[in-house]
């Protein structure tokens, strides 16, 4: 395609958008509503996934050390734990510290267990590379000498892992369904605008326009419709996510859970919305043109 023809197509596609009036408005509105749905749901799904992963990664193995274990034996145990496959980090929490945590969580009445009455154990808190190692590390650690018992959240952790994988699976299914809905709605709207102009296409053919010469302005028009239709969803998602992030992050500051960072996440989702709009708009137009460009 020559640069002159490309310029003509670009001018013509923008001129057609303007002159098609309400048809353009209706198509852009349909794209806007669809992409708004896609944008909001994707933001929620991706963040639910992130929060689930944070919770999952936060699961740790607590290795309780037998009471009479000496400092040297504790160091030996630490070395052995470090050798276990999948262990990332080991930190020590003394029985004193453990009691402090209990008092902090359950109340001052637990102070009466201070000193020699402290019934708690010294603990190694073990973090693993990935959540799938948690159970394995716990079971292996239990076999070591000087280990009284291990805890990793037990059935609670198993339920959590199941829930997280469920969220992931359904997130993917919902996202795919959502994209199908977007493709269907946007390409059908574009198809309707083209159907209403089938007479124009036949006139263009009569004056000797080639199929590609006829097709390009419509494809560009579809792409513009998709792009313009993505502007409001992008703005809505950007502003509302920024606000939600501030509100939710404020209440999560004492935890290891966090939402996706706006400056990286929003660029990705904005680009995705614009690309979906432009891509489906152009593709919808290209596919709808086919039947009008065939010889009888």
């Amino acid at each position, binding site marked *: 395609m020559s640069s002159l023809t490309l310029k003509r197509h670009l001018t013509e596609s923008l001129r057609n958008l303007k002159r098609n009036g309400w048809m353009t408005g209706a198509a852009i509105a349909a794209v806007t509503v669809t992409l708004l749905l896609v944008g909001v749901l994707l933001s929620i799904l991706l963040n639910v996934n992130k929060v689930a992963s944070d919770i999952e990664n936060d699961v740790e193995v607590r290795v309780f050390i037998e009471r009479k274990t000496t400092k040297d034996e504790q160091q030996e145990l630490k070395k052995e734990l470090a050798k276990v496959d999948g262990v990332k980090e080991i930190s020590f929490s003394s029985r004193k510290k453990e009691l402090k945590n209990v008092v902090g969580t359950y109340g001052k009445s637990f102070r009466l267990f201070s000193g020699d009455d402290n019934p708690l154990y010294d603990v190694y808190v073990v973090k693993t590379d990935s959540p799938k190692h948690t159970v394995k590390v716990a079971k292996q650690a239990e076999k070591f000498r000087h280990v009284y018992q291990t805890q990793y959240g037990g059935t609670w952790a198993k339920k959590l892992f199941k829930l997280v994988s469920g969220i992931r699976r359904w997130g993917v299914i919902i996202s795919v369904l959502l994209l199908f809905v977007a493709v269907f709605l946007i390409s059908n709207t574009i198809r309707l605008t083209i159907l209403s102009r089938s007479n*124009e296409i036949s*006139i263009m053919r009569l004056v000797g*326009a080639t199929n590609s010469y006829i097709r390009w302005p419509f494809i560009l028009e579809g792409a513009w419709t998709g792009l313009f239709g993505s502007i409001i969803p992008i703005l809505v998602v950007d502003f509302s996510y920024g606000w939600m992030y501030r509100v939710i992050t404020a209440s999560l500051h004492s935890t290891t859970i966090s939402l996706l960072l706006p400056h990286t996440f929003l660029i990705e989702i904005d680009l995705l919305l614009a690309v979906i709009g432009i891509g489906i708009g152009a593709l919808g137009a290209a596919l709808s043109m086919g039947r009008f460009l065939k010889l009888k």
Partner: protein
Amino acid sequence: MIEFKNVVKDYGNAVLGADHLSVRINQGEFVYVVGPSGAGKSTFIKLMYRDVAPTSGEIKVNNYRVDSITNKEVPFLRRELGIVFQDFKLLPRLTIFENVAYALQVIEKKPEDVQKRVNEVLALVGLEDKAQSFPNEISGGEQQRVAIARAIANHPGILIADEPTGNLDPETSEDIMRILEKINLDGTTVVMATHNSNMVNEHKHRVLEISAGKIARDQEGGGYENE
């Protein structure tokens, strides 16, 4: 040059649009195609610009074998023809200027050449002052003149007109006829399907009468009815 050899067009409803039709039209001729409704006039015209494909037979238009033309070649065949219809077929969203310019833009003419030629043909049909109007803002006669301007913008060797005066009053029809004759005088072949008996009787040219898909009469300087 247009040549039909033994052309058949079967629409599959027991009626033949063209029934072993053979005829030759030389460059520079003015030919009327007459006959009752449903006789096959429009099929004859549509076969020329490959709006319908023949069932059998051979059709030559200039250097194109229309009966075996590919989808890709059709636009190039149509660029050698100017086509005018009863219902004008203007692009409603384009101005008069843009409608005429479109026929030149599709063949990638430079903007300055497009501007010059559009002004020339609009002057020829007397519509320079309506260049920025839209089709729905001008009369039927003016729309038909725009359609003629678009048809000849690209200097086609052949102008095909299917009932060009069908929707127009006698005075406007006379204007359109004068424009077509002027174009013919410049060497362009004009093939005009018409029901307008006054026109055929007053402006004498070759008459092809089609009946039941066959050439019933081929008469140089004939009238609308067989005399």
